[in-house]
């Protein structure tokens, strides 16, 4: 018998494992619109509801805009809510997500990362979720199926904390996490529910005591409202750390708090990345370490709130930092790379390399990572560090 509340351990598909976990949490309202590669999650939840396994109210929306709006409505009535989407679907939710963050309504989304159109591509990169980064939304990027499961257990108590009250998104790479099969531990329903706690917001829609949501505000108060969203998201950093620590205590798993470090202590070269590629990078780091290279990995788990202090502390001792970005802001470089760079300004930190790689599912192997490190080291030794981000493995013959 495990001392942890294990329900069962089996080889499962990522989407099913996440759906089972949401099922264990039994949110009051599930508002969804299907889109690849997220569909298996909501299909499985529909099955759980139809079979009477869970008591959630399952609402098929007519668009992702409506699906997110259903979460807005549920959260404003004090009901725990859930949705999942990908790619264009997340873009269609964007207006509502800003609205939820501004109105401080903590619905939870699974984002199954997928490239944005055009051209249509259903494979993974991070452009969809990174485009939501300015909304006030909490975003945690996970590395594998078990972390996806465990982060869904953690996320409600973070988002619904009275000092936070913000929408939250667990970002998991399409296919590589959503459709892969791995051995997964699922947790007992009562333990999962107890960990999540209850959602008790300061305001609730109630016909007997009418309230105004979405009121107009002039310039005399708008900055303060925006500041309150900013400071709530900053406060979230501690809540993520606390949830990760408590989860380790009660469930025995730990995937990092706001970041995870892997051989960073004595590393001269630190690779920074998030999502499933982190697993690939760990393998590459092991191989390079075996060859005597002092290389490490900094996994960004919480992209929002941005773990600025941890980034500065962990990168300060390195000579080189290499950010592997799965998204970019056209003309301005990789998004993660730009933010890491901004946080190292005036820090006497490492020389920074930024690679845009793995776009639209272009495969990243351990040898790709080793190639990136080799290329960066050569540029570093020749003192010809690129000014901006570099598109990795760009096929010039097609241009």
């Amino acid at each position: 018998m495990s001392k942890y509340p294990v329900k069962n351990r089996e080889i499962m598909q990522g989407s099913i494992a996440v759906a089972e976990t949401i099922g264990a949490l039994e949110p009051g309202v599930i508002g969804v619109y299907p889109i690849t590669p997220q569909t298996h999650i909501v299909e499985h939840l529909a099955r759980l509801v139809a079979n009477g396994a869970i008591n959630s109210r399952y609402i098929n929306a007519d668009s992702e805009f409506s699906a997110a709006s259903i979460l807005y409505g549920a959260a404003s009535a004090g009901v725990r809510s859930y949705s999942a989407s990908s790619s264009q679907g997340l873009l269609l939710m964007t207006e509502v997500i800003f609205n939820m963050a501004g109105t401080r309504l903590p619905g939870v989304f699974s984002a199954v990362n997928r490239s944005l159109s055009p051209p249509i591509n259903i494979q993974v990169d991070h452009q969809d979720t990174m485009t939501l980064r300015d909304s006030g939304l909490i975003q945690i990027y996970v590395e594998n199926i078990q972390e996806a499961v465990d982060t869904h257990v953690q996320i409600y108590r973070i988002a619904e904390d009275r000092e936070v009250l913000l929408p939250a998104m667990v970002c998991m790479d399409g296919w590589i996490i959503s459709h892969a099969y791995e051995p997964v531990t699922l947790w007992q329903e009562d333990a999962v529910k107890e960990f999540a706690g209850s959602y008790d917001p300061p305001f609730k829609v109630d016909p007997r005591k009418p309230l105004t949501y979405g009121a107009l505000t002039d310039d005399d108060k708008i900055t303060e409202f925006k500041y309150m969203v900013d400071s709530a998201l900053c406060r979230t950093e501690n809540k993520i750390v606390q949830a990760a620590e408590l989860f380790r205590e009660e469930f025995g798993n730990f995937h990092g708090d706001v970041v995870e470090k892997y051989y960073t202590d004595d590393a001269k070269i630190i690779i920074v990345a998030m999502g499933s590629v982190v697993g690939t990078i760990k393998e590459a780091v092991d191989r390079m370490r075996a060859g005597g290279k002092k290389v490490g990995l900094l996994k960004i788990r919480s992209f929002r709130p941005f773990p600025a202090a941890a980034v500065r502390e962990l990168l300060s001792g390195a000579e080189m930092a290499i950010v592997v970005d799965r998204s970019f802001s056209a003309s301005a470089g990789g998004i993660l790379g730009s933010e890491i760079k901004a946080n190292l300004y005036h820090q006497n930190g490492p020389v920074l390399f930024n690679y845009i790689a793995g776009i639209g599912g272009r495969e990243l192997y351990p040898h790709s990572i080793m190639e990136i490190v080799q290329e960066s080291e050569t540029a570093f030794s020749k003192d010809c560090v690129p000014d901006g981000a570099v598109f990795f493995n760009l096929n010039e013959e097609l241009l």
Partner: protein
Amino acid sequence: MKLNIGGITEAGQSKKNLTGSWRYQIPVIDQDKCNGCGICELFCPDSCIDINNGRAVIDDTYCKGCGICVKECSRDAIVMQPEGDG
């Protein structure tokens, strides 16, 4: 005063905003022509018109003087009259 999170407030706060002060002209009902059909009541964007005893009555506390009621009245029973110093 401290701000509520999320800008959530008591309902009915807009009643404090006396929008009638924005007006420079006011609709006046010709009581002989008005038959209380309620078209103006339906179209008023600020719900400032009531039908009372079969006749339209304007709420001048909130009427902004937009003049939509004048356009909509099929009996030409409403005219705009300048107010204040114009």
